[in-house]
């Protein structure tokens, strides 16, 4: 009696777990299929229809691989692009720049790549993924963020090294951490962080949940976080500039649209969106 009951229960648990796994798999498959099928159909549309002829029933899909920190701005630029190019659809893949390079190297289909640092763009260029020369389209610098109201009274970079201040930064292996390390060596102030995170998002999360007194993030992240953090700019940040390059990709199926997208990013509309998010123009 108890045995059968327990086995039915176990069976139910196993069935539920299997269901979950299958659901995840299916979701993964469909989203994967969705991307690839739309890309291939757009490729077919591009080859069959004459250039300039926008056929709404066969939309051309442009796939843009962009650094996670560009999510808000590029989504907005994507909407502008779709309005200016009727019949085209822009799909984005937002992730850490090094993840994106890994995916592209592994054969992920993309038309445009926008990196959050020159390092990863160089990796992409060396892997022969890039057609032409990458061009810098924006820059970003670090800033201090604190929980709202700045309870620990942080007023500058040197305050972060005070023993009773808990600070969180990016690990030196990732671009934001490398920038933080440069500021440290420039100023001679060495931080003892309570945690070295993998991404700016993780740093921001620790600050917005009030786990730490301060964190080092990019200005754009602070702008994006709005009033969930208090931003404390420090002059030493200006010396460590992070540059964002963009390039069209050799494996792309929409070279014309890709060039148009890059032009839009460099154009007044694109630059205005970037500036509003806290990006500075590239020199």
């Amino acid at each position, binding site marked *: 009696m108890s045995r059968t009951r327990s086995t039915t229960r176990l069976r139910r648990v196993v069935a539920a777990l299997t269901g979950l796994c299958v659901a995840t798999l299916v979701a993964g498959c469909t989203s994967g299929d969705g991307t690839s099928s739309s890309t291939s159909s757009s490729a077919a549309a591009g080859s069959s229809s004459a250039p300039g002829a926008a056929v709404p029933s066969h939309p051309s899909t442009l796939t843009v691989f962009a650094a996670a920190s560009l999510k808000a701005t590029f989504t907005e630029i994507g909407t502008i692009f779709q309005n200016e190019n009727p019949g085209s659809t822009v799909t984005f893949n937002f992730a850490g720049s090094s993840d994106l390079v890994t995916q592209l190297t592994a054969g992920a289909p993309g038309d445009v790549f926008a990196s959050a640092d020159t390092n990863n763009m160089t990796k992409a260029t060396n892997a022969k993924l890039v057609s032409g020369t990458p061009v810098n389209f924006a820059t970003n610098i670090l800033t201090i963020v604190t929980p709202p109201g700045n309870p620990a009274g942080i007023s500058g970079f040197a305050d972060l090294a005070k023993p009773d201040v808990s600070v969180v930064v990016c690990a030196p292996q990732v671009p934001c951490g490398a920038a933080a390390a440069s500021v440290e060596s420039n100023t001679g102030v060495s931080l003892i962080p309570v*945690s070295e995170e993998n991404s700016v998002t993780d740093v921001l999360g620790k600050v917005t949940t009030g786990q730490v007194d301060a964190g080092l993030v990019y200005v754009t992240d602070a702008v994006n976080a709005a009033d969930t953090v208090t931003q404390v700019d420090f002059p030493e940040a200006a010396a460590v500039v992070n540059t964002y390059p963009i390039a069209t990709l050799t494996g792309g199926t929409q070279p014309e649209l890709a060039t148009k997208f890059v032009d839009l990013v460099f154009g007044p509309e694109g630059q205005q969106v970037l500036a509003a998010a806290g990006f500075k123009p590239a020199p």
Partner: protein
Amino acid sequence: MATAATVPTRRKRAGAGTGSGLPRWVFLPAVVGGVFIVLPLIAMLARVQWSSFLGLITSESSVAALWLSLKTSTASTVLCVLLGTPMALVLARARFPGLRLARSLVLLPLVLPPVVGGIALIYTYGRQGLLGSSLEFLGLRIAFSTTAVVIAQTFVALPFLVLSLEGSLRTAGRRYEAVAATLGANPTTVLRRVTIPLVLPGLLSGAVLAFARALGEFGATLTFAGSLQGTTRTLPLEIYLQRETDPDAAVALSLVLVVVAVLIVLATRGRASEGSL
């Protein structure tokens, strides 16, 4: 007479060659499933740079991460046994309203995305969390400490032990316990001398599963405990970080984790088949 003779031979033929009594077609999806699991591991093995392997896994940061992982996983396994055994006993033996709800809640971390678990833990033990301010008052700061890693691991691993042990308890039944009680043993003696020895294999396999889950814990740790070498950066976090700059090191460390996992599975497989999971 003739029919009586043919029936057994036909039955024999149905399971012929396999000895399992299963229809043959079952084996095809079973093998596909097996390949599905094993193939990625082989692909990873093929990527290991053997010439630099030893150097990569013995680097200072790797050793620190491995050591931290073993320490914290052991601590969380002990916690899981101490907390999970009574939980499994109550779930398997006690009868009270809301038992089914209690069981569902206990199993929640099993199906919860670890990141969600991490966020929940922040709002519980974090600086501005439910218990955080009281803990801070007592001078205890959990966030960003090794304790936070152990808490995150215990949170996600506990259901594995409870589920495994509860299954064993139900399979074992209450017959021996009832006999011991009629012979005059008090409940504690019955638990100590009859119940626990009876389900020891289930307890062991549950503990090993919990250890394995704790060892692989990533999302909750990253969200709740942070990532600092020697303090909170366990092996999975180290692998994730190494991947940014040194994919070879990430692969080498992944292999270490796979080897540990395989050893764990091999160590428990015999016992686990007796138990329930």
